[in-house]
Protein backbone atom coordinates (compact mmCIF):
# COMPACT_ATOMS: atom_id res chain seq x y z
CA UNK A 1 0.00 0.00 0.00
CA UNK A 2 1.38 3.42 -0.97
CA UNK A 3 -0.46 5.98 1.18
CA UNK A 4 0.89 8.97 -0.76
CA UNK A 5 -1.25 7.86 -3.71
CA UNK A 6 -4.36 8.15 -1.55
CA UNK A 7 -3.25 11.48 -0.08
CA UNK A 8 -2.94 12.89 -3.59
CA UNK A 9 -6.51 11.85 -4.41
CA UNK A 10 -7.78 13.17 -1.10
CA UNK A 11 -6.25 16.54 -1.88
CA UNK A 12 -8.31 16.73 -5.08
CA UNK A 13 -11.61 16.41 -3.23
CA UNK A 14 -11.47 19.35 -0.84
CA UNK A 15 -15.16 19.77 -0.01
CA UNK A 16 -16.31 23.09 1.40
CA UNK A 17 -17.97 22.54 4.81
CA UNK A 18 -19.41 25.73 6.38
CA UNK A 19 -18.30 26.48 9.94
CA UNK A 20 -21.62 27.41 11.50
CA UNK A 21 -25.36 28.27 11.22
CA UNK A 22 -26.86 24.97 10.19
CA UNK A 23 -30.43 23.78 9.71
CA UNK A 24 -30.32 20.22 11.17
CA UNK A 25 -32.66 17.41 10.03
CA UNK A 26 -32.77 13.95 11.61
CA UNK A 27 -32.59 10.42 10.22
CA UNK A 28 -35.54 8.05 10.63
CA UNK A 29 -33.41 4.92 11.13
CA UNK A 30 -30.89 6.54 13.45
CA UNK A 31 -33.66 7.88 15.67
CA UNK A 32 -34.92 4.32 15.95
CA UNK A 33 -31.66 2.41 16.40
CA UNK A 34 -28.96 4.95 17.35
CA UNK A 35 -30.90 7.74 19.08
CA UNK A 36 -28.02 8.60 21.39
CA UNK A 37 -25.79 9.29 18.38
CA UNK A 38 -27.99 12.15 17.29
CA UNK A 39 -28.16 13.47 20.84
CA UNK A 40 -24.36 13.32 21.17
CA UNK A 41 -23.97 15.13 17.82
CA UNK A 42 -26.00 18.13 18.99
CA UNK A 43 -24.39 17.89 22.43
CA UNK A 44 -20.91 18.24 20.86
CA UNK A 45 -21.66 20.97 18.32
CA UNK A 46 -24.07 23.02 20.47
CA UNK A 47 -23.12 22.62 24.10
CA UNK A 48 -19.41 21.84 23.86
CA UNK A 49 -18.48 23.96 20.83
CA UNK A 50 -21.25 26.57 20.98
CA UNK A 51 -22.25 26.36 17.31
CA UNK A 52 -25.69 27.30 15.94
CA UNK A 53 -27.55 24.13 14.88
CA UNK A 54 -31.28 24.81 14.55
CA UNK A 55 -33.89 21.99 14.52
CA UNK A 56 -37.58 22.63 13.78
CA UNK A 57 -40.16 20.14 15.13
CA UNK A 58 -42.05 20.54 11.85
CA UNK A 59 -39.45 18.73 9.74
CA UNK A 60 -40.31 15.16 8.71
CA UNK A 61 -38.81 12.17 6.94
CA UNK A 62 -37.43 13.00 3.50
CA UNK A 63 -39.26 9.90 2.20
CA UNK A 64 -35.98 8.38 0.94
CA UNK A 65 -36.60 4.79 2.00
CA UNK A 66 -40.10 4.85 0.46
CA UNK A 67 -38.58 6.31 -2.74
CA UNK A 68 -35.86 3.68 -2.96
CA UNK A 69 -38.45 0.98 -2.24
CA UNK A 70 -40.47 2.32 -5.18
CA UNK A 71 -43.42 3.07 -2.88
CA UNK A 72 -43.65 6.75 -3.84
CA UNK A 73 -43.04 8.37 -7.23
CA UNK A 74 -40.17 10.83 -7.70
CA UNK A 75 -42.45 13.90 -7.69
CA UNK A 76 -43.72 13.00 -4.22
CA UNK A 77 -40.18 12.66 -2.90
CA UNK A 78 -39.16 15.94 -4.49
CA UNK A 79 -42.13 17.78 -3.01
CA UNK A 80 -41.44 16.44 0.49
CA UNK A 81 -37.80 17.58 0.13
CA UNK A 82 -39.00 20.93 -1.23
CA UNK A 83 -41.07 21.25 1.96
CA UNK A 84 -37.99 20.58 4.10
CA UNK A 85 -36.11 23.31 2.21
CA UNK A 86 -39.11 25.62 2.69
CA UNK A 87 -38.90 25.08 6.47
CA UNK A 88 -35.22 25.99 6.30
CA UNK A 89 -35.90 29.12 4.24
CA UNK A 90 -38.62 30.17 6.70
CA UNK A 91 -36.18 29.66 9.62
CA UNK A 92 -33.68 31.88 7.80
CA UNK A 93 -30.89 29.33 7.26
CA UNK A 94 -28.80 28.54 4.17
CA UNK A 95 -26.60 25.65 5.34
CA UNK A 96 -28.42 22.35 5.44
CA UNK A 97 -27.02 19.38 7.39
CA UNK A 98 -28.72 15.98 7.47
CA UNK A 99 -28.02 13.08 9.77
CA UNK A 100 -28.88 10.37 7.23
CA UNK A 101 -26.71 9.26 4.29
CA UNK A 102 -29.67 8.10 2.22
CA UNK A 103 -31.16 11.58 2.62
CA UNK A 104 -27.80 13.15 1.73
CA UNK A 105 -27.89 11.13 -1.52
CA UNK A 106 -31.53 12.15 -2.09
CA UNK A 107 -30.81 15.88 -1.62
CA UNK A 108 -27.82 15.77 -3.98
CA UNK A 109 -29.76 13.74 -6.55
CA UNK A 110 -32.74 16.11 -6.48
CA UNK A 111 -30.73 19.35 -6.59
CA UNK A 112 -28.69 17.93 -9.49
CA UNK A 113 -31.84 16.75 -11.31
CA UNK A 114 -33.41 20.20 -10.89
CA UNK A 115 -30.21 21.75 -12.20
CA UNK A 116 -30.50 19.73 -15.40
CA UNK A 117 -34.31 19.95 -15.63
CA UNK A 118 -35.40 23.40 -14.36
CA UNK A 119 -38.91 22.78 -15.62
CA UNK A 120 -39.20 19.88 -13.14
CA UNK A 121 -38.16 22.22 -10.31
CA UNK A 122 -40.82 24.71 -11.41
CA UNK A 123 -43.45 21.92 -11.37
CA UNK A 124 -42.42 20.88 -7.87
CA UNK A 125 -42.66 24.48 -6.67
CA UNK A 126 -46.26 24.54 -7.91
CA UNK A 127 -47.09 21.20 -6.31
CA UNK A 128 -45.61 22.34 -2.97
CA UNK A 129 -47.60 25.57 -3.13
CA UNK A 130 -50.75 23.63 -3.98
CA UNK A 131 -50.20 21.21 -1.07
CA UNK A 132 -48.90 23.55 1.64
CA UNK A 133 -48.75 27.19 0.46
CA UNK A 134 -44.95 27.16 1.07
CA UNK A 135 -42.07 28.44 -1.03
CA UNK A 136 -38.42 27.46 -0.77
CA UNK A 137 -34.86 28.35 -1.72
CA UNK A 138 -32.31 25.68 -2.57
CA UNK A 139 -29.76 25.53 0.28
CA UNK A 140 -26.43 27.24 -0.38
CA UNK A 141 -24.70 24.12 0.87
CA UNK A 142 -25.86 20.62 1.79
CA UNK A 143 -23.52 18.58 3.99
CA UNK A 144 -23.80 15.40 6.01
CA UNK A 145 -23.41 15.37 9.79
CA UNK A 146 -20.26 13.23 9.47
CA UNK A 147 -18.70 16.05 7.42
CA UNK A 148 -19.20 18.39 10.39
CA UNK A 149 -17.64 15.96 12.88
CA UNK A 150 -14.84 15.35 10.37
CA UNK A 151 -14.14 19.07 10.27
CA UNK A 152 -14.15 19.26 14.09
CA UNK A 153 -12.07 16.09 14.53
CA UNK A 154 -8.99 17.90 15.83
CA UNK A 155 -11.04 20.05 18.23
CA UNK A 156 -12.60 16.83 19.53
CA UNK A 157 -9.11 15.37 19.98
CA UNK A 158 -8.03 18.46 21.94
CA UNK A 159 -10.94 17.99 24.35
CA UNK A 160 -10.45 14.23 24.22
CA UNK A 161 -9.88 11.94 27.20
CA UNK A 162 -9.18 8.69 25.32
CA UNK A 163 -7.59 7.72 22.01
CA UNK A 164 -8.12 4.83 19.63
CA UNK A 165 -5.03 3.12 20.97
CA UNK A 166 -4.65 -0.26 22.64
CA UNK A 167 -3.89 0.62 26.27
CA UNK A 168 -1.69 -2.44 26.90
CA UNK A 169 0.31 -2.60 23.68
CA UNK A 170 0.29 1.12 22.85
CA UNK A 171 -0.56 0.05 19.27
CA UNK A 172 -3.13 2.10 17.30
CA UNK A 173 -6.44 0.26 17.05
CA UNK A 174 -7.11 -1.41 13.69
CA UNK A 175 -10.19 0.40 12.34
CA UNK A 176 -12.40 -0.65 9.42
CA UNK A 177 -14.22 2.43 8.06
CA UNK A 178 -17.39 1.78 6.10
CA UNK A 179 -18.90 4.66 4.09
CA UNK A 180 -22.58 4.68 3.17
CA UNK A 181 -23.01 4.08 -0.58
CA UNK A 182 -25.14 7.20 -1.09
CA UNK A 183 -22.50 9.44 0.51
CA UNK A 184 -20.20 9.88 -2.49
CA UNK A 185 -20.79 7.01 -4.95
CA UNK A 186 -23.44 8.99 -6.79
CA UNK A 187 -21.65 12.35 -6.68
CA UNK A 188 -17.93 11.82 -5.89
CA UNK A 189 -17.29 15.55 -5.53
CA UNK A 190 -19.89 15.72 -2.73
CA UNK A 191 -17.85 13.43 -0.50
CA UNK A 192 -14.67 14.28 1.42
CA UNK A 193 -12.00 12.33 -0.46
CA UNK A 194 -14.20 11.32 -3.40
CA UNK A 195 -15.90 7.99 -4.09
CA UNK A 196 -13.04 5.48 -4.24
CA UNK A 197 -11.08 6.45 -1.10
CA UNK A 198 -13.50 8.54 1.01
CA UNK A 199 -11.57 10.32 3.75
CA UNK A 200 -14.39 11.52 6.02
CA UNK A 201 -14.15 8.55 8.45
CA UNK A 202 -10.47 7.79 7.81
CA UNK A 203 -9.72 11.37 8.83
CA UNK A 204 -11.54 10.89 12.14
CA UNK A 205 -10.04 7.47 12.88
CA UNK A 206 -6.49 8.63 12.18
CA UNK A 207 -6.88 11.94 14.01
CA UNK A 208 -8.01 10.01 17.08
CA UNK A 209 -5.04 7.64 16.99
CA UNK A 210 -6.33 4.62 15.04
CA UNK A 211 -5.02 3.09 11.81
CA UNK A 212 -7.41 2.35 8.96
CA UNK A 213 -7.59 -1.02 7.18
CA UNK A 214 -8.06 -1.22 3.38
CA UNK A 215 -9.45 -4.69 2.59
CA UNK A 216 -10.71 -5.96 -0.81
CA UNK A 217 -14.43 -5.57 -0.08
CA UNK A 218 -14.03 -2.16 1.61
CA UNK A 219 -16.16 -0.46 -1.06
CA UNK A 220 -18.83 -3.18 -1.08
CA UNK A 221 -22.33 -2.31 0.11
CA UNK A 222 -23.33 -3.37 3.67
CA UNK A 223 -26.39 -4.96 2.03
CA UNK A 224 -29.23 -2.82 3.40
CA UNK A 225 -30.77 -2.43 -0.04
CA UNK A 226 -34.18 -1.15 1.23
CA UNK A 227 -36.49 -3.80 -0.28
CA UNK A 228 -33.70 -6.35 0.25
CA UNK A 229 -34.21 -5.92 3.98
CA UNK A 230 -37.69 -4.60 4.60
CA UNK A 231 -39.29 -7.73 3.11
CA UNK A 232 -38.25 -10.78 5.10
CA UNK A 233 -38.15 -13.02 1.99
CA UNK A 234 -35.27 -10.95 0.53
CA UNK A 235 -33.12 -10.62 3.62
CA UNK A 236 -30.83 -13.45 2.45
CA UNK A 237 -29.34 -11.04 -0.12
CA UNK A 238 -28.72 -8.38 2.52
CA UNK A 239 -27.15 -10.90 4.89
CA UNK A 240 -24.89 -12.23 2.10
CA UNK A 241 -23.47 -8.78 1.33
CA UNK A 242 -22.40 -8.24 4.93
CA UNK A 243 -21.08 -11.81 5.05
CA UNK A 244 -18.94 -11.10 1.97
CA UNK A 245 -17.48 -8.01 3.70
CA UNK A 246 -16.68 -9.82 6.94
CA UNK A 247 -15.04 -12.75 5.12
CA UNK A 248 -12.89 -10.19 3.31
CA UNK A 249 -11.89 -8.12 6.37
CA UNK A 250 -11.36 -11.05 8.74
CA UNK A 251 -7.67 -11.70 7.86
CA UNK A 252 -6.88 -8.08 8.80
CA UNK A 253 -8.16 -8.71 12.36
CA UNK A 254 -9.91 -5.34 12.84
CA UNK A 255 -10.66 -4.11 16.35
CA UNK A 256 -13.69 -1.99 15.43
CA UNK A 257 -15.82 -0.69 12.58
CA UNK A 258 -16.77 2.98 12.21
CA UNK A 259 -19.69 3.97 9.96
CA UNK A 260 -21.46 7.19 8.92
CA UNK A 261 -24.81 5.91 7.67
CA UNK A 262 -27.98 4.89 9.51
CA UNK A 263 -28.34 1.42 7.98
CA UNK A 264 -24.72 0.19 7.95
CA UNK A 265 -24.10 0.08 11.74
CA UNK A 266 -27.41 -1.76 12.24
CA UNK A 267 -26.67 -4.36 9.55
CA UNK A 268 -22.94 -4.84 10.18
CA UNK A 269 -23.88 -5.34 13.85
CA UNK A 270 -27.06 -7.49 13.61
CA UNK A 271 -25.90 -9.64 10.68
CA UNK A 272 -22.87 -10.72 12.76
CA UNK A 273 -25.40 -12.04 15.27
CA UNK A 274 -27.38 -13.86 12.55
CA UNK A 275 -24.24 -15.29 10.91
CA UNK A 276 -23.22 -16.69 14.30
CA UNK A 277 -26.71 -18.16 14.78
CA UNK A 278 -26.95 -19.65 11.28
CA UNK A 279 -23.34 -20.52 10.45
CA UNK A 280 -21.79 -20.71 13.90
CA UNK A 281 -19.11 -18.33 12.67
CA UNK A 282 -17.83 -15.22 14.45
CA UNK A 283 -15.24 -12.62 13.46
CA UNK A 284 -12.76 -10.37 15.27
CA UNK A 285 -9.47 -11.02 17.02
CA UNK A 286 -10.94 -12.98 19.93
CA UNK A 287 -13.91 -14.06 17.79
CA UNK A 288 -16.34 -12.28 20.10
CA UNK A 289 -17.42 -10.23 17.08
CA UNK A 290 -16.21 -6.89 15.75
CA UNK A 291 -18.02 -4.02 17.52
CA UNK A 292 -19.64 -1.52 15.13
CA UNK A 293 -19.96 2.18 15.94
CA UNK A 294 -21.43 5.33 14.47
CA UNK A 295 -18.93 8.19 14.15
CA UNK A 296 -20.74 10.12 16.93
CA UNK A 297 -20.37 7.14 19.26
CA UNK A 298 -16.63 7.05 18.57
CA UNK A 299 -16.36 10.83 19.03
CA UNK A 300 -18.26 10.39 22.31
CA UNK A 301 -15.87 7.67 23.49
CA UNK A 302 -12.87 9.87 22.65
CA UNK A 303 -14.44 12.74 24.59
CA UNK A 304 -14.99 10.47 27.59
CA UNK A 305 -18.77 10.09 27.56
CA UNK A 306 -20.20 7.22 29.63
CA UNK A 307 -20.65 4.34 27.11
CA UNK A 308 -24.22 3.82 28.29
CA UNK A 309 -25.06 7.47 27.65
CA UNK A 310 -23.80 6.83 24.11
CA UNK A 311 -26.45 4.13 23.73
CA UNK A 312 -23.85 1.36 23.24
CA UNK A 313 -26.16 -0.95 25.19
CA UNK A 314 -28.44 -0.89 22.14
CA UNK A 315 -25.82 -2.75 20.14
CA UNK A 316 -26.08 -6.52 19.69
CA UNK A 317 -22.34 -7.21 19.20
CA UNK A 318 -20.67 -6.64 22.58
CA UNK A 319 -18.68 -3.39 22.84
CA UNK A 320 -17.00 -4.20 26.17
CA UNK A 321 -13.88 -5.84 24.61
CA UNK A 322 -13.21 -2.61 22.70
CA UNK A 323 -13.81 -0.42 25.75
CA UNK A 324 -11.35 -2.54 27.72
CA UNK A 325 -8.77 -2.30 24.91
CA UNK A 326 -8.93 1.50 25.03
CA UNK A 327 -9.04 1.44 28.81
CA UNK A 328 -12.35 3.27 29.16
CA UNK A 329 -13.75 2.99 32.67
CA UNK A 330 -17.42 1.98 32.84
CA UNK A 331 -19.46 -0.16 35.16
CA UNK A 332 -21.11 -3.28 33.87
CA UNK A 333 -24.17 -3.21 36.08
CA UNK A 334 -25.47 0.04 34.63
CA UNK A 335 -25.54 -1.39 31.11
CA UNK A 336 -29.18 -2.38 31.05
CA UNK A 337 -30.28 -0.23 34.00
CA UNK A 338 -33.25 1.75 32.72
Amino acid at each position, binding site marked *: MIVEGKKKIWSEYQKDIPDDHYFYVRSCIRQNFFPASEKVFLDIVRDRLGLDFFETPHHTTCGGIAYHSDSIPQETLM*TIVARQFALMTEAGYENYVCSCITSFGIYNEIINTWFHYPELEAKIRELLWEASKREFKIPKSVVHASDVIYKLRNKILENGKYRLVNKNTGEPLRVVEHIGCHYSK*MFPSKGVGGAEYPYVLTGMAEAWGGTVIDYPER*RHCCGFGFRQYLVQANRGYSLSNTHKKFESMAPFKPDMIITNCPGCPYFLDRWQYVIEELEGKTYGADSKGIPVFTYEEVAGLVLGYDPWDLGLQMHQTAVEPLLDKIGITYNKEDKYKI
Partner: protein
Amino acid sequence: MSCITRCPRKNGPGLIIQALRNLSQELGYFIDSEKGRQQLVLNRALCGNILNYGYCVYPRTFHYSDHPENGPVGKLIEDNLEAVHKRVGSNLDGEGPGILRKIPQSDLDELKRIFDVTGATERMEKIETISKKRAKELGLSDEEYCRQIFTINSEEHYI
Protein backbone atom coordinates in the same frame (compact mmCIF):
# COMPACT_ATOMS: atom_id res chain seq x y z
CA MET B 1 -25.99 3.09 -6.35
CA SER B 2 -22.44 1.69 -6.69
CA CYS B 3 -23.19 1.18 -10.43
CA ILE B 4 -23.36 4.93 -11.09
CA THR B 5 -19.75 5.44 -9.99
CA ARG B 6 -18.48 3.00 -12.57
CA CYS B 7 -20.54 3.38 -15.79
CA PRO B 8 -18.13 4.67 -18.47
CA ARG B 9 -21.03 6.18 -20.40
CA LYS B 10 -22.32 8.15 -17.37
CA ASN B 11 -25.57 6.15 -17.18
CA GLY B 12 -27.44 5.39 -13.94
CA PRO B 13 -28.32 1.67 -14.08
CA GLY B 14 -29.86 1.87 -10.59
CA LEU B 15 -32.12 4.71 -11.70
CA ILE B 16 -33.15 2.77 -14.79
CA ILE B 17 -34.21 -0.16 -12.62
CA GLN B 18 -36.14 2.28 -10.40
CA ALA B 19 -37.92 3.72 -13.46
CA LEU B 20 -38.79 0.21 -14.68
CA ARG B 21 -40.23 -0.69 -11.30
CA ASN B 22 -42.35 2.45 -11.30
CA LEU B 23 -43.52 1.65 -14.83
CA SER B 24 -44.40 -1.92 -13.91
CA GLN B 25 -46.57 -0.56 -11.10
CA GLU B 26 -48.22 2.02 -13.36
CA LEU B 27 -49.04 -0.65 -15.96
CA GLY B 28 -50.01 -3.28 -13.36
CA TYR B 29 -47.35 -5.84 -14.40
CA PHE B 30 -45.87 -5.87 -10.88
CA ILE B 31 -48.50 -8.38 -9.74
CA ASP B 32 -47.04 -11.10 -11.96
CA SER B 33 -43.64 -11.37 -10.28
CA GLU B 34 -42.68 -12.60 -6.83
CA LYS B 35 -40.62 -9.45 -6.11
CA GLY B 36 -43.29 -7.25 -7.69
CA ARG B 37 -46.06 -8.54 -5.43
CA GLN B 38 -44.02 -7.50 -2.40
CA GLN B 39 -44.85 -3.88 -3.25
CA LEU B 40 -48.08 -4.14 -1.24
CA VAL B 41 -46.37 -4.82 2.12
CA LEU B 42 -43.73 -2.19 1.36
CA ASN B 43 -46.35 0.46 0.64
CA ARG B 44 -48.39 -0.36 3.69
CA ALA B 45 -45.38 -0.28 6.01
CA LEU B 46 -43.55 2.74 4.60
CA CYS B 47 -46.42 4.97 3.45
CA GLY B 48 -48.27 4.02 6.63
CA ASN B 49 -45.36 5.23 8.77
CA ILE B 50 -44.94 8.43 6.76
CA LEU B 51 -48.59 9.44 6.80
CA ASN B 52 -49.36 8.35 10.38
CA TYR B 53 -46.13 9.36 12.16
CA GLY B 54 -43.97 11.36 9.69
CA TYR B 55 -41.13 8.80 9.80
CA CYS B 56 -40.13 6.12 7.25
CA VAL B 57 -39.34 3.77 10.14
CA TYR B 58 -41.13 4.05 13.48
CA PRO B 59 -40.41 1.96 16.63
CA ARG B 60 -44.04 1.10 17.42
CA THR B 61 -44.51 -0.46 13.96
CA PHE B 62 -41.12 -2.26 13.93
CA HIS B 63 -42.08 -5.56 15.57
CA TYR B 64 -39.43 -7.97 16.84
CA SER B 65 -41.60 -10.85 15.54
CA ASP B 66 -41.05 -9.59 11.97
CA HIS B 67 -37.37 -8.81 12.68
CA PRO B 68 -35.80 -11.63 14.75
CA GLU B 69 -32.37 -10.52 13.50
CA ASN B 70 -32.77 -7.53 15.82
CA GLY B 71 -31.50 -10.02 18.38
CA PRO B 72 -32.03 -10.32 22.14
CA VAL B 73 -31.10 -6.63 22.54
CA GLY B 74 -33.83 -5.75 20.04
CA LYS B 75 -36.34 -7.75 22.07
CA LEU B 76 -35.24 -5.98 25.24
CA ILE B 77 -35.64 -2.57 23.55
CA GLU B 78 -39.11 -3.46 22.25
CA ASP B 79 -40.24 -4.63 25.67
CA ASN B 80 -38.96 -1.45 27.39
CA LEU B 81 -39.35 1.04 24.54
CA GLU B 82 -40.20 4.19 26.56
CA ALA B 83 -37.61 3.54 29.27
CA VAL B 84 -34.75 2.76 26.87
CA HIS B 85 -35.43 5.82 24.75
CA LYS B 86 -35.71 8.00 27.82
CA ARG B 87 -32.36 6.63 29.09
CA VAL B 88 -30.57 7.65 25.86
CA GLY B 89 -32.26 11.03 25.60
CA SER B 90 -35.02 10.55 23.02
CA ASN B 91 -38.15 12.68 23.07
CA LEU B 92 -40.36 9.70 22.15
CA ASP B 93 -43.87 11.02 21.28
CA GLY B 94 -42.94 14.26 23.05
CA GLU B 95 -43.71 17.86 22.08
CA GLY B 96 -41.20 20.15 20.35
CA PRO B 97 -37.97 19.10 18.61
CA GLY B 98 -35.98 16.01 19.54
CA ILE B 99 -35.49 12.34 18.70
CA LEU B 100 -38.70 10.52 17.64
CA ARG B 101 -40.78 13.57 18.70
CA LYS B 102 -44.52 13.60 17.99
CA ILE B 103 -44.75 15.30 14.60
CA PRO B 104 -47.65 17.77 14.74
CA GLN B 105 -50.82 16.72 12.95
CA SER B 106 -50.69 19.87 10.78
CA ASP B 107 -47.39 18.65 9.29
CA LEU B 108 -48.80 15.15 8.72
CA ASP B 109 -51.76 16.74 6.94
CA GLU B 110 -49.35 18.58 4.66
CA LEU B 111 -47.58 15.27 3.86
CA LYS B 112 -51.00 13.75 3.04
CA ARG B 113 -51.81 16.63 0.68
CA ILE B 114 -48.41 16.22 -0.95
CA PHE B 115 -49.22 12.52 -1.43
CA ASP B 116 -52.54 13.51 -3.00
CA VAL B 117 -51.30 16.18 -5.40
CA THR B 118 -48.19 14.31 -6.56
CA GLY B 119 -49.77 10.94 -7.36
CA ALA B 120 -48.53 8.87 -4.42
CA THR B 121 -52.04 8.26 -3.07
CA GLU B 122 -53.27 7.23 -6.49
CA ARG B 123 -50.30 4.86 -6.79
CA MET B 124 -51.01 3.31 -3.35
CA GLU B 125 -54.67 2.75 -4.23
CA LYS B 126 -53.74 1.10 -7.52
CA ILE B 127 -51.39 -1.32 -5.75
CA GLU B 128 -54.09 -2.08 -3.16
CA THR B 129 -56.85 -2.81 -5.70
CA ILE B 130 -54.72 -5.00 -8.00
CA SER B 131 -53.27 -6.90 -5.04
CA LYS B 132 -56.69 -7.48 -3.46
CA LYS B 133 -57.91 -8.82 -6.80
CA ARG B 134 -54.97 -11.29 -6.94
CA ALA B 135 -55.50 -12.35 -3.31
CA LYS B 136 -59.13 -13.13 -4.10
CA GLU B 137 -58.11 -15.08 -7.21
CA LEU B 138 -55.74 -17.13 -5.02
CA GLY B 139 -58.49 -17.62 -2.44
CA LEU B 140 -56.36 -16.04 0.28
CA SER B 141 -57.45 -13.64 3.00
CA ASP B 142 -55.69 -10.28 3.02
CA GLU B 143 -53.64 -11.38 6.05
CA GLU B 144 -52.63 -14.73 4.43
CA TYR B 145 -51.74 -13.00 1.15
CA CYS B 146 -49.56 -10.44 2.95
CA ARG B 147 -47.88 -13.18 5.02
CA GLN B 148 -47.07 -15.10 1.78
CA ILE B 149 -45.59 -12.19 -0.17
CA PHE B 150 -43.64 -11.10 2.96
CA THR B 151 -42.01 -14.51 3.49
CA ILE B 152 -41.88 -16.57 0.27
CA ASN B 153 -38.64 -16.55 -1.72
CA SER B 154 -38.53 -19.09 -4.55
CA GLU B 155 -34.73 -18.68 -4.53
CA GLU B 156 -34.54 -19.00 -8.30
CA HIS B 157 -32.17 -16.07 -8.09
CA TYR B 158 -29.82 -18.32 -6.16
CA ILE B 159 -28.29 -20.11 -9.13
